[in-house]
C-alpha cells in the first residue's frame, strides 16, 4: 500500500483504478473504502470497464512475474556455470527447455520486446540448437506458436530430462534455497525430470540428449520386455555364419585335428548365434502369420542355398557396388525399392504413377484373362507358368491409380505385390500378376509419407503427416492397429525381421518401436538432431540403425534401448540404409551422392567407445550427381544402389 501511495506514474494510477474497479465489482466495500482512503482517491466516476480492468490486472501480474523469472533464470545460468564439473553437464540440460518456456511465456504474455531482449541475451548459451532457435525467434505471437510444428508441443507436452539423483538434488537445493519459485513452477509444469541412481552421464551421452526435440525417452519405456530375437530356420542360421572362417570344415576330415577344431568352433559359433537370436525371440504365433506356401518354401530354400559362398565385406575385401541410375528422373521419381533378390525395382513418381522395372532378362508377365484361366488344366505340372500370358511380357510396368505424388513404394518378400502411398492420403496395394490395383487403404488424414512390408509378408505399416503409424493386414481394409504417440510427421518405417515390431522414425527426432501384438510403444529412442529419414534392423534383430536429415547414423541396442554408436560421414540427408545378409556390414546412401560402407561387426564389438572413421568406414563411393534413393545387398553381398541423376 505504501508503494502504491508513492506511485505517481500514469501506469500505477491505472493499476490502482483497476484494483478499485475490481473491488467494486466484487462488492468488497470495506476494502474499497479503506483503499480509497489510503490512496487518497475521491469519487468513483472513473471506474474502469471490465475488459480494461482485466487486462491491466493480468499485465501487472505477468510483468512482475516475468521480471522475476528473468532474474531467476540468470541466476540459474550462473549457478550451472559455477557448479561442479561432474554435474555441470546434466544441470545444463535444464537451461534450454527453461529458456524456451520463459521465451514463450513472454510471447504469450504479450511482451515481444522483452522476449527479444531475453533471447538476444541468452541465445549464445544454447549450443547445438542454432537451427531450432531460428524457429523459436520467428515465434512472435500466439498464432505463430500454434503453427510451429516444434514449439507448439512445448506448452502441451512435458520435456523429459534424465539426470542422476545428485544432480537433481543439486538443482533443487539451488532453486529452493533461493526460493526461485517461478522456475520451480515452470519445471513442475513443463518438465519431467527422470531421476536415476548412479553416476552422472558421460559427455557422449550428454551430446545425445542435447539436441532432441522434447527431451529424452523415459527409462521406464525402454525397460519394457521386447522380443527382439529372430527364430531363424537352422539351415539359414548356418548359412548366415561367417563363411570365411568356417567354410572348409564340411569336408571329409574329422581325422585332421585342425579341421576338427574348426568344426568344433563352428558348432560353438552356431550355438552362440542361436542363443543370441533365439533366446529373445517371440514365441511362434505370437503374431499370427499365414503358413508359407510350397512356392515360398522353395524360394526360401533357394535363397539359403545362394547365401553360401557369398562375398564378405571387410577392410581387406572392399565392397562391390552396382548402381542403377534413373535418368530423366529429377523432379519425377520420389522413391525406389528393390526386391529381396534385387531383380525388381519399383519407383514412385511425382506424376502419381508407380513404375516397376525388371532388372534382369526375365520380363514382367501379366496373368491371362479369367476365361482363359478357366480352360487351363489345374493338374498340369507347369500350371504356374501357364497362367501367365506370354505375349504380355515387358521390361517395365506402369501402374496408375494414385491421385497425387507417390512418396514411398515397397515390394513384398515374394515380388508378387507392390505397396505404394502418397499425397492422396491412401496406401494402395498392386498386384504384379494382374497388373491392377487390388485395394486402396484409406485411414490417414494427411499425406502418407512411408510404408513398409513385414519381411514375412501379410502385414504392412504406413505412416504419414497425421503423426499416426497404422498397421494393416491384407485380410482387412480397415486398420489392424493405430500407433499414436509421435509428435511429428512419420517419415520412416521398418518392420522387425521377426515380424512382431514396427519401428517408426519421425520429424520429432525420436524413434519408437511399437509392439504389433499389444499396440504399445516398447522403445523410445532419442538422440537424433533432425528428422529421421531411414531405419533398418539388423538381420538377427538385436540392433536398429537409423539415419537422419543431418547426415548422422546412430546404432541402437534393442535389448535396453541404449545408444551403441554414432557414425558420421555423410554431409547430407541419409536417405537409405541396408545391412549385409549376416549383419556384418552396413551400407548407407545419402543426398550428398555418396554410398558409405561401414564395418558393423567392429562397431558392435567396440560399443560404447569412441569410434574413428578409419576403423568403421570401409569404403566411400561417390556417385555422379545422383542422390541415392535406395540400397540393398544381394544374397552374395553385392551392394546394389538406386539413384536419380539430378544435374
Amino acid at each position, binding site marked *: 500500500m505504501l508503494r502504491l501511495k508513492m506511485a505517481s506514474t500514469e501506469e500505477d494510477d491505472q493499476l490502482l483504478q483497476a484494483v478499485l474497479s475490481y473491488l467494486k465489482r466484487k462488492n468488497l466495500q470495506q476494502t474499497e473504502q479503506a483503499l480509497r482512503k489510503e490512496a487518497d482517491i475521491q469519487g468513483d466516476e472513473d471506474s474502469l470497464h471490465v475488459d480494461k480492468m482485466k487486462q491491466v490486472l493480468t499485465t501487472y501480474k505477468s510483468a512482475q512475474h516475468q521480471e522475476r523469472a528473468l532474474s531467476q533464470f540468470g541466476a540459474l545460468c550462473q549457478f550451472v556455470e559455477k557448479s561442479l564439473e561432474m554435474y555441470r553437464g546434466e544441470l545444463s540440460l535444464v537451461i534450454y527447455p527453461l529458456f524456451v518456456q520463459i521465451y514463450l511465456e513472454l510471447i504469450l504474455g*504479450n511482451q*515481444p520486446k522483452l522476449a527479444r531482449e531475453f533471447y538476444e541475451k541468452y541465445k549464445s548459451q544454447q549450443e547445438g540448437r542454432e537451427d531450432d532457435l531460428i524457429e523459436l525467434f*520467428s515465434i*512472435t*505471437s500466439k*498464432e*505463430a506458436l500454434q*503453427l510451429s510444428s516444434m514449439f507448439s508441443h512445448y506448452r502441451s507436452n512435458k520435456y523429459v530430462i534424465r539426470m542422476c539423483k545428485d544432480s537433481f538434488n543439486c538443482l533443487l537445493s539451488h532453486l529452493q534455497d533461493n526460493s526461485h519459485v517461478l522456475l520451480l513452477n515452470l519445471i513442475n509444469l513443463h518438465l519431467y525430470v527422470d531421476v536415476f541412481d548412479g553416476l552422472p552421464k558421460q559427455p557422449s551421452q550428454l551430446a545425445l540428449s542435447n539436441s532432441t526435440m522434447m527431451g529424452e525417452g523415459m527409462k521406464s519405456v525402454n525397460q519394457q520386455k521386447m522380443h527382439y530375437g529372430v527364430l531363424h530356420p537352422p539351415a539359414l542360421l548356418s548359412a548366415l555364419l561367417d563363411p570365411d572362417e568356417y567354410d572348409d570344415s564340411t569336408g571329409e576330415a574329422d581325422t585332421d585335428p585342425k579341421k576338427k577344431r574348426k568344426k568344433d568352433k563352428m558348432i560353438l559359433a552356431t550355438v552362440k548365434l542361436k542363443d543370441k537370436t533365439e533366446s529373445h525371440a517371440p514365441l511362434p504365433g505370437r503374431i499370427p502369420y499365414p503358413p508359407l506356401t510350397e512356392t515360398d518354401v522353395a524360394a526360401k530354400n533357394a535363397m539359403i542355398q545362394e547365401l553360401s559362398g557369398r562375398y564378405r565385406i571387410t577392410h581387406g575385401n*572392399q*565392397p*562391390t*557396388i*552396382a*548402381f*542403377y*541410375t*534413373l*535418368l*530423366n528422373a529429377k*523432379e*519425377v*521419381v*520420389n522413391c525406389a525399392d528393390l526386391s529381396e533378390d534385387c531383380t525388381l*525395382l519399383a519407383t514412385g*513418381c*511425382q506424376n502419381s504413377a508407380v*513404375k516397376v*522395372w525388371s*532388372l534382369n532378362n526375365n520380363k514382367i508377365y501379366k496373368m491371362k484373362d479369367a476365361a482363359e484361366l478357366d480352360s487351363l488344366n489345374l493338374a498340369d505340372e507347369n500350371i504356374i507358368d501357364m497362367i501367365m500370358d506370354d505375349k504380355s511380357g515387358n521390361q517395365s510396368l506402369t501402374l496408375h491409380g494414385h*491421385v*497425387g*505424388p507417390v*512418396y514411398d513404394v515397397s515390394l513384398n518378400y515374394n515380388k508378387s505385390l507392390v505397396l505404394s502411398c502418397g*499425397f*492422396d*492420403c491412401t496406401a494402395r496395394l498392386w498386384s504384379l500378376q494382374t497388373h491392377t490395383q487390388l485395394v486402396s487403404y*484409406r485411414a490417414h*488424414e*494427411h*499425406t502418407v*509419407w512411408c510404408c513398409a512390408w513385414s519381411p514375412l509378408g501379410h502385414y504392412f505399416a504406413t505412416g504419414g*503427416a497425421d503423426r499416426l503409424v497404422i498397421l494393416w493386414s491384407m485380410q482387412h481394409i480397415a486398420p489392424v492397429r493405430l500407433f499414436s504417440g509421435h509428435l511429428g*510427421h512419420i*517419415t520412416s518405417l521398418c518392420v522387425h525381421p521377426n515380424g512382431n515390431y514396427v519401428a517408426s522414425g519421425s*520429424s520429432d527426432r525420436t524413434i519408437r518401436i511399437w509392439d504389433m501384438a499389444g499396440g504399445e510403444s516398447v522403445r523410445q529412442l532419442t538422440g537424433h538432431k533432425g528428422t529421421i*529419414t531411414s531405419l533398418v534392423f539388423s538381420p538377427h534383430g538385436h540392433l536398429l540403425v537409423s539415419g537422419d536429415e543431418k547426415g548422422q547414423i546412430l546404432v541402437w541396442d534393442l535389448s535396453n534401448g541404449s545408444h551403441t554408436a554414432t557414425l558420421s560421414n555423410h554431409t547430407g*540427408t541419409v536417405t537409405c540404409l541396408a545391412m549385409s545378409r549376416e549383419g556384418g556390414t552396413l551400407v548407407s546412401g545419402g*543426398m550428398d*551422392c555418396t*554410398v558409405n560402407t561401414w564395418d558393423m561387426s567392429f562397431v558392435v564389438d567396440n560399443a560404447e567407445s569412441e569410434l574413428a572413421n578409419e576403423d568403421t568406414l570401409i*569404403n566411400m*563411393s*561417390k*556417385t*555422379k*550427381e545422383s*542422390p541415392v*534413393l535406395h540400397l540393398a545387398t544381394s544374397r552374395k553381398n553385392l551392394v546394389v544402389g538406386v539413384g*536419380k541423376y*539430378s544435374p
Partner: protein
Amino acid sequence: MVEHAENDNELSSESIKAIAESVGVKDLNAECTSYLATQALLQARTLLRDALKYKLMTRSLDLTTDHMERANKRPVPIYASTSQKPRRYCMATSRGREIYGALDEEIDLDTILSEPPPKIPQDVQVKVHWLTIEGSTPTIPDNPPMEDDKLVIDAPLVSIDNVETVNSVAPHEISREQQLYFKELTTKCISTDKVVRDEAVHSLSTDPGLAAVLPRLTVFIIEGIRVGLGDCKMYYIQYMLEMLDNLLQNKAIRLEKFLHDIIPSVISCMVCTQICGRPLEQDHWLVRGFAARILAGLVKSHNLGTNQIQSRVIKMLHHALEKQNSSLVSTFGVLAGLCDLGSLTISTIVLPEIRNIYRRVELKCATSQDPIDRHAKERIRELLVRKCAHVVQEHLPELLSVDDYEQKFGDIGREMFYKVMRPGSHIPMMK
C-alpha cells in the same frame, strides 16, 4: 497491436498498402497493415517450413514450386468423387416416353486436333553401371571424375574449331587446366580486339610455361595458316605469323621438333600465288616480307650441322627461283626469302642469277595483261635494289662504274649503282 516495427524480416507497410490498393482498398489504417504484415509473414514461414518437408521426402536437392504447392494444399482424403458444378439434365422424348439425359458439354474436336501436341517429357530410364569394384571406382563416364580434377570445371572444351584436330593430332594428353589455358590463349590470339590480341600474342614471347601446349599451339598455327591460305584471309595469316614471330622470341621453349611443320607453312605464306582476297588493294607484299623474315629467323636460330636447315631451305628456294613458269608473285616471295637469309646467300645465289631473273620478270610483265604482274615487277625491282646493292658493294668491290653494274646485272644494275652511290653512303669511287 504488437510492436514489430524494428523487425527486419517484416513486410514493409508500403507493400501491404500497394497490395490493398490493388484490390481497391484505399487508406488502410496502420493497425490493419501491421496485422496483415504479421500474418503474411507467419503464413510464408509456415509454408516454407512445410515445403521443406516435401523437399526432404521427395529426396530432391532443390526446393521447387511443386513442393510449395503441395505444402499449401492440405490433401483431402478422397472417399467419393465430387463435381465442381451441379449436374445438368435435359429432357428428351422418344416414342411418347420422357427421358432425362445428362447434358454433357460439347467439345469441339477440331480445335483439339488442330492444336500442336504438347512436348512429351523424356521418359525415365534405368541405366546400370559399376560404382565400385572391390573398393576401386572404375573410370567410366557414369562415375564422377577423380578427386584430382575436382577443382576444374567440367565444361567440355569444344567451343573453338581446332580443338578436335588438336586432340587427334597431338601426341600426348594435357591436363584440364592446360586445355583451358590453351583455349583462352588461342581465342584471344585471333580476337578482333587489337588490344586483347596484342596482349595475348605478346605473352607468347615471354610465357615460360608454354612447353606443354606447344605441340597443339604449332598445330593451331599451321592449321590456321592453311585455313587462311585456303580462304584467302590475309589477316588470319598475319595473326598466325605474329604468333610465330613471338614464339620465336621466347627463350624458354624449343621449336626444333616442330620445324618440319612450321617451315613449309611459312614458305607457303611467302610464295603462294594468292594470299588475300583483293591482291591489288591489300598489301600482301608486307605479309610475304614478314614471313620471309620469320623464315630467316627460324633458320638462323635453328641451323645446326646436323639438320642443315639453312642449306635445305636455300636449295628449295633456289629450285623455286629457277622454275620458268612460276608467277611473279611467287618469285617475289622466293627472292624475299633468299634475300633475308643473309649477304652470303645473296652473293652466292641471287647475284649470279639477278640478270636472268630480272630479264624473265620483265618479259613476263610485258606479255601479261594482269596488273598484278606489273605490281610484282615493281616490288621485285625495289626488293633487289634494296637488298642487293650493299651486298654487291661488299662482295664485288671491283665493280666501280655504272657500266660495270649494267654489264654484270643488266638493266637493274643502274639502279643498284645509284642506290649504292646515294649521297651519304660509302662511295668507293673516291679511292
